[in-house]
């Protein structure tokens, strides 16, 4: 059983409760590792040190293996991201169909470069390699939503839509 220093106890209690609830859905075996990490990433926009240690403890896998899985998949990753992550495809079809202009529009609209997060913590911009939407190039993923036939004009609308969602929260 994992015991943590007193200063981490409140965070530990909340996280343990949350992760135990997730494990009720995903099972207690090591095959629950990826679904649990996906859920944690979606809820917290990061996979924290303590979260990894709680997951390791519950699934009886070494903490380094949890970190290994989290850092292997580019859609997981341990570092904090914004509430919304936009992955723009940079492979051949999208590039030929004008991904560069879309990328410029995104960086201009959000005021950040690829790989960065906006100061308000709302948006992270990332490159993706082929997401299988070559027929609708240039394509991107906004969180879990696939977006095709992008143009600089559409980018403004999409970002505005995501901002509105954030404001409602």
């Amino acid at each position, binding site marked *: 059983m*994992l015991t943590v220093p007193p200063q981490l106890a409140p965070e530990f209690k909340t996280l343990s409760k949350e992760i135990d609830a997730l494990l009720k859905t995903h099972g207690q075996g090591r095959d629950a590792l990826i679904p649990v990490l996906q859920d944690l990433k979606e809820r917290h926009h990061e996979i924290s040190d303590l979260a990894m240690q709680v997951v390791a403890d519950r699934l009886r896998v*070494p*903490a*380094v293996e949890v970190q290994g899985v989290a850092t292997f998949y580019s859609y997981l990753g341990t570092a904090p991201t914004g509430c919304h992550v936009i992955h723009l495809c940079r492979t051949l079809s999208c590039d030929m169909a004008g991904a560069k202009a879309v990328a410029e529009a995104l960086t201009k609209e959000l005021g950040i470069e690829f790989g960065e997060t906006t100061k308000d913590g709302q948006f992270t911009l990332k490159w993706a390699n082929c997401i299988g939407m070559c027929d609708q190039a240039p394509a991107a993923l906004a969180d879990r939503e696939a977006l095709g036939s992008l143009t600089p004009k559409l980018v403004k609308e999409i970002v505005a839509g995501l901002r509105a969602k954030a404001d409602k929260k």
Partner: protein
Amino acid sequence: MTTEVSTETVTVAIDGHEVQVAKGTSILEAARQVGIDIPTLCHHPDLPDAGVCRMCVVEVDGQRNLQASCAFPLTQATEVTTHSPRIHQARRDVLDLMLSEHYGECRTCVRNGNCELQDLAAEYGCDYVRFGHKTEATSCLDNLGPSIVRDMDKCIQCLRCVRTCAELQGIGALGVLGRGDKTEVGTYLDIALSQVNCINCGQCINRCPTGALTAVDNTDQVWAAIKDPTKHVVIQTAPAPRAGIGEEFGQEPGTPMTWQMNTALRRVGFDKVFDTNFTADLTIIEEGTELLLRLYKNLVLSDSSQPVPQFTSCSPGWIKYIEHQYPEYLANLSTCKSPQQMFGALIKTWYAKENDIDPSDIVSVSLMPCTAKKFETTRPEMTDSGFADVDYALTTRELAKMIREYGIDLPDMPKSDFDDPFGTASGSGVIFGATGGVMEAALRTVVELVLGIKVEDLFAHADIVPVRGFEGAKYVEVTIPDKVGPVPAILAHLVPDWDWLKGATLKVAVVHGTANAEKVMEDIKAGGKFSECHFIEFMACPGGCLGGGGQPIPTNADIRQARAKAIYGEDAAYGEEGRARKSHENPAVLRLYEEFLTEGPCGHTSHHLLHTDYTNRGTFIAASTKKES
């Protein structure tokens, strides 16, 4: 350890040699059966295959691409080619790429001359760095711990260490982080190895093909002490290195070097050469007494403050393992220090006083098959003599290096005995070096002390064979007859009689390798068979100390078997030469109780110097101890 093998067979032709193998056998294994050597860097006979290094590629009839022979199970008749221009080029490419990423000087590397990458580079004619060469370090050297040094600039990502740590030992201190060209072998959050759940067993070192994982080297400090005329430098030597060190001097595995090593150690400059088996014998008296006391308390006095089963405490890897993984069972651990630490405490007290030497002038060195022993010397509680009880723990490899530096060919040395006042210990001390040895030694003594008969009356030649061998967890029952002996004088103040043991069944177990320890601990938690044991021997390393992380490289089941044979052979030879084979017959141990530990086993002085307590470490890894960069 390869893919699952069935009883069906397939016939394959490897380089034209027909061979019939069980279906599922890997090409690599099949080739070795016909004497064809395929080079590998990631395959290791103790580990499940990973198929990552691509050195073992071969051509398989009907397969367009080259196949990794370690990860290709044979399921049908086929033809395999293991050497061709195409294969040679592929292997050379792999090597050249590895060398381009490999930063570090071969000349000053501890693995110079015993490096699998270096050997293959020579074998495949890598005479220039085709893809360039890294000119500066890109990883931070992790040398913060007392036992293991991690230099990831020398890592070729064969993942043997990761598989050793996670699968052979069930620890998981090392893992694979990141992906693609960013992949790294590392620890959780890149925290120093000494600050995570590593138990310092050093099994990763024994399996690392290069110098990426090495033991902390204390030879400079020991040379400095030897050269200092004001220092009295003593060394105690454990039994397992004697069975292994010959390998460092070109001897077949299992060639014991005990008596030659004594001479070599004196020539190298140690003032006294002592036998750690002396304190192994002492451990048996202390730990055997503790066991009988625990049983008496639990069975007769209904006092469970010191619960059973009692766990052995000789293996510092096992100690750190239980402190991390099962701290709720620390009360089950024998409070006895390990033989190394008992000896350390006696050298700087009794020995210093007897010989009128200021203990602050004594430099106490130990020769151990173990990297965790280095950590053990640094534990803050190991200072009961008023000083560091042991100053430096050397591995078998370090001592071999020192002997070579002195121009000594070990096998050529004349034989000599250990120094007094501790002398040469009993055969029971010798077998501490093999899994089951502590249990056998304890049983020899407990049986005689309780039954008042010779152990030979129960087991021929006092060889307690059921506790020997390499099965991961052995369970043995010994029924105590209805007739018990009188309580020997040495224990008379502790228990009134043995009547309460009449007809009892003593249940014991022997466990080696921490992956097996985990299974047994889980069984105990679940109230299974092992929870009914009275006494369990745990050793962190596969095979016990003889397979320790400080032993010569390489290691495999055959080598460990040969070392075990040497150890048991030495014990048997003690019998033939009329030396003591049972701990309680060791004359120096008896003298120690008469002159120094006068309150007897588990008495006040014993408790002060020879017993210890443990730390609840738990599994939490504190990020605040992150490695400085």
